[in-house]
């Protein structure tokens, strides 16, 4: 009798965990897409057949792992997917990690993203900041996963330097950051994301396929294989449901 109860409890506990974990993955994908910020997209909005969204936080290591792999293979990514499959790739930047108390850097990084979008050069800022973070921290094993050393609170000039290196106008960027011109949009999008996901980032929505997390070893060459699998899964799942 005791054994039966024990086994029953274990089965119930497993079922409970699975139900809750799968609730997140089975959350219905967003219908009737609208782009949140035009400057944060790649591809042709007017003619795109597919919509690929990445919900991210610049100080989320798994998000950066994905973006680093894409950036290192950007020509192939554009040729095979963005242009080849007519995909509109949209990045939705949040500061969820700041909100959750994980990283104070998320807030200026996120505000910077919307300031860069105002100059219509989000990608320049994004790639430059990720390159800088990889060089200074991720490549040294800092801020790469849950057990690694955390990235310290960065001086605001770190983001100004990244913006300048990414081809943005430094004075305009500094002025935007000082006046917190990107904050309201960042706050709005973070709240929308938090209400949509019920979990964390990176969260990918490819038409009707959703994907949570990203597997990789901080090696842009091998990690790109996982990017391709994710993209192919989105394309194939779309075909299956048509």
């Amino acid at each position, binding site marked *: 009798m005791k054994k039966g109860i*024990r086994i029953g409890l274990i089965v119930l506990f497993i079922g409970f965990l699975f139900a809750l974990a799968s609730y997140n993955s089975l959350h219905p994908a967003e219908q009737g897409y609208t782009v949140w910020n035009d400057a944060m997209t790649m591809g042709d909005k007017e003619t795109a057949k597919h919509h690929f969204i990445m919900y991210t936080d610049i100080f989320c290591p798994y998000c950066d792992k994905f973006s680093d792999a894409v950036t290192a293979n950007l020509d192939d990514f554009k040729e095979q997917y963005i242009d080849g499959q007519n995909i509109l790739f949209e990045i939705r930047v949040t500061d969820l990690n700041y909100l959750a108390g994980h990283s104070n850097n998320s807030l200026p990084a996120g505000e910077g993203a919307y300031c860069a979008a105002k100059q219509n050069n989000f990608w320049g800022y994004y790639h430059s900041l990720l390159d800088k973070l990889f060089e200074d921290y991720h490549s040294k094993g800092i801020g790469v996963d849950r057990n690694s050393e955390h990235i310290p609170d960065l001086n605001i000039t770190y983001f100004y330097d990244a913006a300048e290196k990414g081809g943005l106008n430094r004075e305009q960027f500094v002025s935007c950051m000082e006046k917190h011109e990107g904050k309201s949009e960042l706050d709005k999008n973070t709240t929308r994301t938090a209400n949509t996901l019920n979990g964390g980032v990176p969260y990918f929505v490819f038409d009707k396929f959703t994907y949570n997390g990203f597997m990789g070893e901080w090696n842009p060459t091998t990690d790109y294989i996982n990017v391709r*699998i994710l993209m192919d*899964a989105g394309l194939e799942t779309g075909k299956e449901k048509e």
Partner: protein
Amino acid sequence: MGEKKPKKRSVFKKLKQNCEAFTNKAKYAVVGCGYCVRRPKYIALFVASFLFFLFFLTFFRDGNGNWQLLWSGLSFGYKMKVLGLVCLAMFGNFASLYGISLIFLSLLQALAIALIVFAWRNRKREAALDGASAGGFASLLGFATLGCPTCGISFLTPILSALAGASATMLAERIGTVLSILAFALLLYAIVKLGYTVYIIVGTSKKEEK
């Protein structure tokens, strides 16, 4: 007031005695584990269990993305490729502290499985069931803490976000650390108990042989 002091002393004395008894048991358990793992049948079981647990933990290491890929529209061959990549990623675990903790957890799980089967086959079923309960619970705790709580991708996050909203990721990280330690402690406790049982089994059979 005067009666309380001896009571306190007796509690500490009891605690000390229990600790000493557990340490002694642990010493015999190490010998018991040695007996068990030296037998070819159990080495095979240990290795197979270790690979199974490491694969399972690696599969869910970075969130539940791999699970979602298996239920996507990818072809069967492509899904096999996903599983193959997880096999390769098992070796990547040696490169990070997080990965090494998964390897260590898998080793303990595998040892517990080998000991449970040994005890079960030698008619110590009550001890085997106790070990299986503790080991099973430790596995669930270990599984629940997988992922990246910093990014909110942990099996704990959806559970906690229902209770704590946006602060769920922070809570998940803190609770995850506590649960990880608890999982290791529970597994070690189960292994000591089972290892000691195996030591008794082997000791008794040797006496009987004499």
